[in-house]
């Protein structure tokens, strides 16, 4: 196929073809992840490397479908992939601990910083087959209900609630609801057909996936129920084929770009999405009372115990991993105490 850059030598920018990197992700082409993050990062890399590295984005799963992106990067279908850890259940046992319901992440800064620190500290075996670029979190996901307000535990019993992935589906089961696991792209139809009474996801999806048209008259804040982590990883051979100076530039540029843009991103787009939804029609945002909150968290607790057992069965120190994750979460919750800051006052 195409000539890759020869490792070791440092060619002059003028007389070499730039290294082209294919980036696969599943967000719509209009989503801020494409228009702000990927475009901005690609531009920063191109500038920092004097045009020696060119990143081409393939949005909306046109190169690789969402659940196949990680493995697609390992096999070189894409050079870089951005997707969600939770779409391949069991593939990332350690990192999935961060997604367990019952662990609170106040906002997207907390979940992003916690994940980055956790991955550094735990250095999980499961992602050693790629070059990990960064991980960010969406922070809280909330219950967006169509017509039924959820104010207490009893209200959610027997309802069908959409979820995009396993961990929060387990939480929903414990709460007495019936989880319906569907990829985000299929939610609009499922909600408009009445297959789901609502869904648990970040409120930005009301705008980004047009869900505000079919759900979200009542929004119950459930930061303990939902956390989503997104990875950005690169094919290992591709990474190793880059010259050391390019590797260094990419590492430094990425670190800077990440710190400036990603950790608080979801709070920002959640705020934008919620405002958009409220402009369409009135929405009631429900905050659970303290006692109610405690009841929900207690109901969810068995999911964590099961998960520790699962980790142990995989030969991993379950207790220790869960403890580390909770400690890191608390550390950053103290540092960024705003719960669901996108709701405002």
């Amino acid at each position: 196929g195409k000539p890759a850059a020869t490792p070791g030598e440092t060619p002059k920018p003028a007389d070499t073809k730039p290294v082209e990197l294919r980036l696969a992700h599943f967000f719509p082409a209009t989503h801020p992840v494409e228009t702000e993050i990927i475009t901005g990062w690609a531009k920063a890399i191109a500038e920092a490397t004097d045009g020696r590295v060119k990143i081409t984005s393939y949005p909306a799963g046109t190169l690789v479908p969402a659940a196949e992106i990680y493995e697609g990067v390992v096999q070189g279908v894409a050079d870089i992939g951005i997707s969600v850890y939770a779409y391949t259940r069991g593939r990332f046992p350690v990192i999935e601990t961060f997604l367990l319901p019952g662990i609170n992440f106040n906002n997207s800064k907390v979940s992003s910083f916690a994940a980055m620190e956790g991955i550094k500290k735990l250095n999980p075996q499961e992602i050693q087959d790629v070059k990990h670029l960064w991980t960010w979190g969406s922070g809280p996901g909330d219950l967006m209900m169509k017509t039924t307000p959820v104010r207490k535990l009893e209200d959610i019993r027997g309802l069908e609630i959409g979820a995009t992935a396993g961990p929060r589906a387990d939480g929903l089961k414990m709460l007495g609801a019936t989880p319906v696991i569907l990829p985000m792209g299929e939610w609009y139809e499922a909600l408009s057909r009445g297959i789901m009474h609502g869904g648990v996801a970040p409120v930005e999806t009301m705008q980004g996936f047009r869900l505000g048209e079919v759900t979200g008259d009542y929004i119950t804040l459930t930061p303990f129920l939902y956390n989503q982590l997104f990875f950005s990883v690169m094919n290992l051979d591709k990474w190793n084929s880059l010259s050391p100076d390019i590797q260094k530039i990419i590492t430094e540029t990425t670190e800077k770009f990440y710190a400036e843009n990603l950790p608080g991103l979801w709070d920002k787009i959640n705020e934008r999405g919620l405002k958009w939804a409220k402009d369409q029609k009135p929405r009631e945002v429900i905050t659970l009372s303290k006692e109610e909150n405690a009841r929900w968290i207690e109901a969810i607790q068995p999911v964590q115990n099961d998960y520790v057992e699962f980790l142990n069965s995989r030969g991993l120190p379950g207790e220790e991993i869960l403890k580390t994750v909770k400690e890191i979460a608390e550390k950053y919750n103290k540092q960024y105490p705003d719960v669901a800051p996108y709701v405002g006052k």
Partner: protein
Amino acid sequence: MSPFLAGICGIIFFLILLVLKMPIAVGMAIVGFTGFSYVVSLGAAYRILSSDFYTTFSSYSLSVIPMFVLMGFFAFHAGIGTKLYSFAYKVFGHFAGGLAMASEVACAIFGAVCGSSTATTATIGSIAVPEMQKYNYSNSLATASVAAGGALGILIPPSVIFVIYGVATEQSIARLFLAGVLPGILLTLLYMAAIWVITRRNPALGPAASGPRPGPREIFVALRGGLLEVLIVFAISIGGLFAGWFTPTEAGGVGAAGVLLVSLVEGSMNWERFNRALMDTTRTVAMILFLVAGAIIFGRFMAVSRIPFELAGWVSSLSLPPFIILGIILLVYLFFGTFIEMIPLILLTIPIFYPVVVNTLGYDPIWFGVIIVLVVAMGVITPPVGINVYVIKGVARDVPLEVIFRGIWPFLIAAIVCCVLLIAFPQIATFLPNLVMR
């Protein structure tokens, strides 16, 4: 060789394989695999080869196909299709082409709620084609009318393509749904008009019933013997889908079970017929999903060849009158719609075309969405790759492919007329959403 050139070679290579009688699904997969391994790498191509087959076969949104095809074949083998069409023949049979027109309406209603053009074609086709043949309709009219009608449902809401367009362009999906209603009805009427015109010129294509017109009593009698019950089952399945009780897959499952139940009670189902319905179902479904998987692999190659991007970029840079640019864009979709699955094509090109059409040329975004879907409806019946035509070929195995494609022309012309009308009178699309949603 640049990826772009490799893409062009791939398309030519695919056409050669078609001529050499290679099964179309395999041909698409081979070219997609080879091209992808050339542009990216062999290891990467190995990966898409395996994962695309598994993920396509195990897709929930495609699971609607086996269920509705099963319903269609149950109805056919239990003789319910015969009853249905003898009823339709009593009502519409006294003028030429009447049954084909009735099939158009059946397609529009069924497709409207089902939303999948392949499932509609397979379901209605499995009932309608053998019956029309029985009443001496020509093979080309019997098959082509259903192949074309199968795509009516993607214009009439709900429609997956509108959801994808709405998310990709940040337009209201509810508005898009409303905008599709009148053009969908218009296209149905135009298809019926096309049937009227060709059967008027050559009545042998769809001969009218001879003898006196049956009275209301005779028509009512034809409803007996299980037909009324089956119509109720259809109403529950389709109505439940429309009311939001079922997903499309569930509506198909409920419909199939209902038809089975009615035919068992009526005594028109026996072991042999049951078995034959199942056999026809697995054969048809394997054919359709294998084809879809092949098209997806081919589409991956087209994506990395960057042909859609480069072409879109080129068209956007032209300095020509707006309607000419629009015309070129539609031709691009029609051309590539003959090789690539429409959904990936829309995802790949809309981000480039949309700003040009809406921001630069100033066309209405909702209207453009309707136009795109209309072009999709044409793409599924145009040669060389018209998936609806292949599906109907799978149902009507005795009809040669070229006969079906020959019958497509009147419908294609009708669709082009519809497109021209929409360009001349954009209100056909924008009137309803503006009325209802201000």
